[in-house]
C-alpha cells in the first residue's frame, strides 16, 4: 500500500480513502510535520498539545472527506481545518499564547525580510530574536497572514481559501501587518 500511494496526489488519495481508510494514513504522514510546524507558529507550543490538536485535525479531516471541495488544493483545505482547530484549542484554553517561535525557518526569515521594505532592512539589523518579539506582539489576524505567506510560503489565493476571506482582504492585511511589524521592529532597536 505504501508503494502504491506514494505516487498518488493528495486529491487521488482522498478519493481512495473514502472506501479504504488505511490510505488515509498516507495523508497523515504527508502533513504531520508541516501542520505541526504551523501549529507551533500559531502558538501551540507544548508537544502533548500539538499531538492532541494534530489528531483532532486528522480525525476531522477524515470525518469531512466528502466535503473536500475539488476546486481547492487539498493542502489549503487541510490547513483551513488546522487553523480552525488551533483557534478552537485557544478558545478552550481561553487564551492565545504570547510567544512566537522562529525555529528552523531561516528561509522564512529571509523571505520576510525581503517582504519588508529593503531600505528599511538596510537601516536596521534584523535578527531572529527581534523578529520573534515583534511577531508575538502583532494582532493575531496580522500574524496569521504573515505566517501563512512567509513561513508557510502560501500564495494569496491559498491564504484566501485557508482563512475564508477575499484575496483583496489578504493583500490588505499583509500590507498592514508589514507596516505594524516595521513599527514594532523600529521600537525594539536600541
Amino acid at each position: 500500500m505504501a508503494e502504491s500511494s506514494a505516487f498518488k496526489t493528495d486529491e487521488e488519495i482522498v478519493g481512495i480513502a473514502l472506501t479504504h481508510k488505511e490510505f488515509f494514513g498516507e495523508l497523515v504522514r504527508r502533513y504531520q510535520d508541516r501542520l505541526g510546524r504551523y501549529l507551533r507558529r500559531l502558538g501551540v507550543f507544548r508537544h502533548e498539545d500539538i499531538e492532541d490538536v494534530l489528531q483532532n485535525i486528522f480525525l476531522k479531516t477524515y470525518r469531512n472527506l466528502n466535503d473536500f471541495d475539488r476546486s481547492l488544493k487539498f493542502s489549503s483545505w487541510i490547513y483551513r481545518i488546522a487553523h480552525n482547530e488551533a483557534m478552537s484549542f485557544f478558545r478552550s484554553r481561553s487564551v492565545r499564547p504570547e510567544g512566537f517561535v522562529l525555529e528552523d525557518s531561516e528561509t522564512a526569515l529571509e523571505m520576510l525580510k525581503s517582504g519588508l521594505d529593503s531600505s528599511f532592512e538596510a537601516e536596521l539589523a534584523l535578527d531572529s530574536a527581534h523578529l520573534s518579539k515583534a511577531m508575538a506582539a502583532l494582532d493575531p489576524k496580522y500574524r496569521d497572514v504573515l505566517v501563512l505567506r512567509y513561513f508557510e510560503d502560501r500564495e494569496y489565493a491559498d491564504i484566501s481559501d485557508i482563512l475564508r476571506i477575499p484575496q483583496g482582504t489578504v493583500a490588505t492585511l499583509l500590507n498592514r501587518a508589514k507596516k505594524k511589524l516595521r513599527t514594532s521592529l523600529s521600537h525594539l532597536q536600541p
Partner: protein
Amino acid sequence: MPDELKPTSAEDLASKVLERIEEEQVAPRPAWQFTWKNRLYWFLFALLVIMASCSLSALLFSLANAGWEFASVTNDTFADFFWSVLPSVWIVAAIVVLFLAYENFRQTKHGYRLSFLTAAGFGVLGVFVAGLALYAAGFGQVVDEQFGGRLPFYESTFSRQQSMWTKPDRGLLAGEIVDVDSSNMSFRIKTFDGQVWELSSVDLSPHSRDLLMSKNIVRVVGIIDSVDANGKPVFKPCFVFPWDVHGGRFPSPPPMPRVVIHVEVERKPDAGRSTDCKGVRPYDYLRRLQESRP
C-alpha cells in the same frame, strides 16, 4: 532538544489516528449532508434577499405616497414633514436583512471569495431591481399594510396619510365624495374618521369642481370660516386635489356609488367666489399645483 520541539514520528501518529478511527468508529459523513447544508445556505440567502426586496418595495410605496407635493400644506416645515414620512422601519429592515444575507452568502462554498464591496454592490443592485418590480406590481402596498396592521409601533402609509388629512382645524380634509349637487353648489364628503361633511363648492375653482365630478377620493384644503348654529365649525373648501395612489390602489372597502345632482347652469368661471380662500396658506403654491395638474 526540549520536549516541545521533539517531533512525533510520522508512523506513530498515522497509526494512532487510524486506531482512533477504528475504535471510535469514525466514518466520513455522507456527501448529501454537505450538499444539503450548502443548499440550505443558498435557500436562506435567497429568502433574505426576497425579504430585503419586500422591505424596499414597501419603502418605495411609502415614499411614493407620502404626499410630497403637499409638504408645505400639511406641515409647518419641510423638516417636520420629512421626519414624519421617513419610512425608517423599512430602511432599517432592508439594511439589516441585506447584511444578514451577506453573512449567509459568505457561508456558502465559495461565497467568501467575493469582497464585501462587490457582494454588497451586487446585493444592493439585485434588491433594488427586485424591490422596484415588486413595488410596480403593487406588492409594496401589501407589505406596508400587512405590517401596518400587525406591528404595534408601525403605522401604515395610508393610515398615516389619513391622520394627516383629517385635520379640519388645520384646513385639511380628505375622504370619499358621497354626492355632488351642482345646483346648490355643494357636495358631501365622508372623511376617513367616518364623519360626513356637507361643504359648499362656491369658492372652488372650475378645476376643483370638475374633480368633484370625476374623482371618488379627494383631498380638500380649506379654512374654518365660521361656526354654525350648533357651534360646529364650518369648513370652507378652497382647493380639491385627487388622491392618487402610486404603486397600488386605494384600500378597501370600495367606494360607495356616488350621487351626482347636476343642473346645467350658465355660470362664469369665478362667479360667486369670495376672497376668503386667499387666506389659505400657501395659496399661490396651491393654485400653481392645481393648475399644473391635468
